[in-house]
């Protein structure tokens, strides 16, 4: 009797998250645009020395009319190209810090509510609901009216108005995950609550959080633009929303003043949304390729 050697079945593996991200065209495009924008924001001084708010030339020059000002000038004679380059800073800064604030607040509230549940959870969710039911844009306007429109206050206002979304998401995740086996295991090993929340559950809730964060950054940019439209933007720093706001008067004749910063906003928000989509797909285990 011959023994037929049975070949061990070759086991492949599911591709890693990183590999899934790398092959996703949406992620690549989105990340690419964002990196470009970031580079532009950081190197603005190099390409546009001087103060972007300085009145440097004849007002309302069309793009291309004067080679020194490729994107034209606004109604006060300020360089539009310089404004867009420096404006990336304010817009990105506001969006990123607002999102950081809302993520921090949201995770804190949501984690506690989801993990502990019971009375504490109810109270926390009640508070979340209160903030969520007040129309968020109106809340932002009220907060900005309390202080002056500066980059810090605007970021604070947007952050405060958007944390409920994160809180609800994190709470849902924690409610599901706290029943998981690895949590029981960790508890039986004697880890305290704080360690379990931070080191066990939170890393597993990261995926939807990252996707939500990218959407929050995008919406923060849009909210800032809306605020600037209503006249509540920082007058000392160029921002894309602010440029749309001050260029609004000339919409019929020099519409490039509104169109160009609007396009900049569209590009960045588009990139963020594509990144979010891509992250969503890449982090979805069912969409990952099987590599034999």
């Amino acid at each position, binding site marked *: 009797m011959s023994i037929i050697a049975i070949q061990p079945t070759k086991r492949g593996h599911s591709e890693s998250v990183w590999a899934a991200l790398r092959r996703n065209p949406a992620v690549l495009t989105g990340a690419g645009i964002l990196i470009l924008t970031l580079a532009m924001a950081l190197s603005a001084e190099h390409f546009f020395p001087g103060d972007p708010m300085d009145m440097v030339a004849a007002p309302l020059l069309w793009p291309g009319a004067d080679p020194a000002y490729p994107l034209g000038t606004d109604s006060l004679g300020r360089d539009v190209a310089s404004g867009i380059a420096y404006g990336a800073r304010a817009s990105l800064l506001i969006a990123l810090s607002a999102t950081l604030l809302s993520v921090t607040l949201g995770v804190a509230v949501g984690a506690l509510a989801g993990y502990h549940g019971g009375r504490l959870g109810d109270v926390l969710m*009640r508070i979340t609901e209160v903030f*969520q*039911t007040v*129309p968020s844009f*109106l809340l932002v306007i*009220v907060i900005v009216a309390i202080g002056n429109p500066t980059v810090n206050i605007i970021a604070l206002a947007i952050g405060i108005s958007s944390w409920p979304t994160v809180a609800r998401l994190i709470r849902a995740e924690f409610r599901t995950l706290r029943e998981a086996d690895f949590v029981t295991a960790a508890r039986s090993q004697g880890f305290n609550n704080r360690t379990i929340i931070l080191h066990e559950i939170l890393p597993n809730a990261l995926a939807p959080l990252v996707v939500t964060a990218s959407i929050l950054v995008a919406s923060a940019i849009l909210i800032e633009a809306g605020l600037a*439209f209503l006249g509540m933007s920082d007058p000392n720093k160029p921002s894309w929303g602010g440029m749309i706001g001050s260029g609004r008067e000339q919409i019929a004749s020099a519409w490039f003043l509104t169109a160009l910063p609007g396009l900049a*906003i569209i590009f960045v928000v588009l990139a963020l949304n594509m990144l979010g989509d891509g992250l969503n797909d890449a982090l979805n285990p069912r969409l990952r390729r099987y590599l034999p």
Partner: protein
Amino acid sequence: MVDRLRILRLARRTLWQAVPTVFGILLLNFLLLRLIPGDAVDVLASESGGATEATLALWRSHFGLDLNLGQQLLAYLTHLAHLDLGVSPRFNMPVSQLVFDRLPNTLLLMVGALGLALTIGIAAGVLMATWVGRWPDRLLSLAVLVLYSAPGFWIGLMAVVVFSVTLGWLPSDGIETLGLDLHGMAWLTDRLKHTVLPVLTLSTFYIALYARLTRASMLEVQRQDFVRTARAKGLPPTRIAVRHVLRNALLPVTTLAGLHFAALFGGAAVTETLFGWPGLGRLTLDAVLSRDYNLLLGILLLSSMLVVLVNVSMDLLQAWLDPRIQVE
């Protein structure tokens, strides 16, 4: 019979839970408003071009603004218990009258925008899901993504330039043409023409949102076992698409639509300013600018209650659609 009982219990529970929420909103707004520098009398004085110190003191005591925070809150709550929203110092009118005068205009805008967004969005989403991966899907997806990323008021501004200034097809301000005593169809047409641009501006973001969501949701549901079963059973494709796939795919959409009601109030503020639409959004802005606490509280209270109401209805709708949802 059991079904109806379940829904009634659910309704009662959700409404009961809404009370502390509304109270919390009241408290929050009251505190926030007091933090804004200046009060309504400052506004009245500066708007009139100045006033004597005596007049300022008189106005302050007349509007109860010289009391401390606790007393003002108590006074407000007492009025509220009598269903009295107070008087607006800036407009010299009862708050309830101001709010209910403008409420229909805002509701028209919001319901119109939501309706349009749901119709076009879901239709687009269905189209994209039907031709997933092929060029109609790719094209629509790109268009939807751009729509999703553009500031609504920017699109509104561009629309005003094209349709109002250049082409002259649509009006750009107000809710109706003044001075015409129109009736019937003519009145309806005039009102509709004034509504087109504002509703379009407000809805762009949500069209894109619902399109994306419907597409993702339909693709998700199409993969489910029961769809495969239906196909195996030989049911006609239209019937599968509508009765099985779409019906289930719409659940997340309806949830979101309810949540967006609150967000629409804020978006309405920008749209209403752009088009001179006499609605609650603009009234809120005016109230903040004129430190009109009574008016602002009245609006925020009303809008919050409306949101709670819509959320409750959404919950009930879902409970009716999905028999698995029980009272916890």
